[in-house]
């Protein structure tokens, strides 16, 4: 996927951006759920095709995120949820349509949009403390201030005692907390979570969900949280977007008006999880039927997706 992916050339403007005016007006119509009329981020008619022959990953995806909102994206695996996150981060460029940040097209990654990855992606050669200080150093923050901010963040995620540990010495949950602290270091306006707790056990996940909720509320950060676990989405989100698979598209937009703090076992949460699950199940079955009808679809999408097999082909 890597080689075929069209990425933004660092520091250059996007090649074909649509007029901002037209895009913004359509976004406003699409974002009827958001409480704030001016979205902080939006996808407008975004499609993404990767590889040769082209595989459509996303098809005509439009939604917007209000400032301070906690938006969760759920859907079956391989449905393009992470791709949407990479688009918002500016790590990928859309084939058509536009990705907007405060009304202007996204032309690459920026410090006000931080990402927490599924594998934490802490740098193994740096201690936890150095990992958290790294984005501050890149941002040109002075050493004294860097130390102060790092300590504050370590305390926020309860890892002060482990400041000198290297990532391999930490547990999976601690690594994720470290990654969250690192993402918050430069005080981003939006944090993008890419299935950060998928590899953790149930108890640890619940604990970290509480922490994310606490931290995000405390800092007033906008959050987009990708997960394939519906209860996690309902538990954390102000709003849940259902993302269908092959190609990825928005199937539904569910506002979650349940009181906080929520627990996974709350009756309201359970009821909503049930109805969202039913909707997703219908979608998954539809996709499965389509695949069974034509073996072509299945074989073709596998061919395009698995570029690993071509590794070393150019040698």
């Amino acid at each position, binding site marked *: 996927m*890597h*080689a075929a992916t069209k990425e933004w050339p*660092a*520091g250059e403007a996007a090649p074909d951006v649509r007029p901002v005016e037209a895009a913004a007006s359509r976004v406003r119509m699409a974002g009827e759920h958001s409480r704030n009329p001016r979205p902080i981020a939006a996808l407008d008619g975004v499609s993404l095709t990767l590889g040769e022959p082209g595989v459509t990953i996303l098809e005509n995806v439009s939604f917007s995120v209000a400032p301070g909102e906690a938006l969760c994206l759920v859907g079956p695996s391989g449905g393009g949820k992470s791709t949407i996150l*990479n688009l918002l*981060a*500016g*790590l990928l460029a859309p084939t058509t349509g536009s990705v907007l940040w405060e009304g202007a097209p996204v032309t*690459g*990654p*920026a*410090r006000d*949009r*931080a*990402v927490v*990855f*599924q*594998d934490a*992606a802490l*740098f*193994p*050669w740096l201690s936890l403390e150095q990992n958290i200080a*790294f*984005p501050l150093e*890149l*941002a040109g923050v002075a050493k004294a201030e860097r130390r102060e901010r790092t300590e504050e963040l370590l305390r926020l995620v309860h890892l002060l005692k482990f400041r000198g540990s*290297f990532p*391999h*010495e930490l547990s999976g949950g601690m690594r994720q907390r470290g990654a969250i602290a690192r993402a918050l270091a*430069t005080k981003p306006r939006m944090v993008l979570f890419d299935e950060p707790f998928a590899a953790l056990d149930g108890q640890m996940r619940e604990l970290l969900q509480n922490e994310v909720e606490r931290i995000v509320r405390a800092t007033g950060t906008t959050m987009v949280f990708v997960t394939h676990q519906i209860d996690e989405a309902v538990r954390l989100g102000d709003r849940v977007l259902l993302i269908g698979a092959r190609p990825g598209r928005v199937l539904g937009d569910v506002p979650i008006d349940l009181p906080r703090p929520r627990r996974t076992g709350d009756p309201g949460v359970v009821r909503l999880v049930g109805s969202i699950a039913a909707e997703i199940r219908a979608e998954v079955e539809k996709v499965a039927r389509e695949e069974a009808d034509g073996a072509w679809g299945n074989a073709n999408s596998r061919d395009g997706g698995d570029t690993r097999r071509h590794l070393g082909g*150019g*040698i």
Partner: protein
Amino acid sequence: MRTAATAAILVAIWAAASRVAQSPLFPGPLDVARSLAAALVAGTLARAVVTSALRLVVGYAIALATGVPLGLVLARSDATKRAIGPLLLGLSSVPSICWLPLAIVWFGLSEAAIQVVIVLGAALPVTLATESAVRQLPPTIERAARTMGARGPTLLFRVLLPAAMPGIVTGAKMGWTFALRSLMAGELLFVSGGLGQLLETGRDLADTALVLGIVAVIIVLSRVSERLLFGPLERVIARRWGTAMP
């Protein structure tokens, strides 16, 4: 400790075997020690070691200085990879000593000729190891760095290079071994000081004890230099990455 015990047993067997053989072509450990001591007293051994070591250090430094950057470029630029990747793989299958005749024609019987052989032998494994180490990094490392605003030289030198360090050190270690082999081959063929020449002298005089002694010296030097050069690096990597080096 266990290694020392094994070595002692092997030396004892060797001593016994040479006593049974009773032939000047099969010297015992004492003959070898005597021969080495003589070379040491005459100063030939020290001169040879210094000559070889200098050549090795210079050639290896050039190989690292070209091999690591070339590997980085190959990993980051698909166009470069397509253009010279196949050529480099082809070259790496040629033992570097094969370039000695050409190097002698070009540079004469000079230090430059032997340096060509060392650099060609050592740079390619370093290049290929650096390239694969950078290419095999988890993609989220680069993505995380880019969301923090790292790009260009910052991304390359502050993120990708340190991230690939375990693979690069493995390649550098391999390069050191290749440099030593290329050097010995070069010195054996192109007589001009160094341990290789001392080996040649041993052959000319049918001094098998000297030949065996020099081989022992080469083994010791290669092990000690590897420890000194790469030991500290490997300890740092084991501490940070939590992995034992291969």
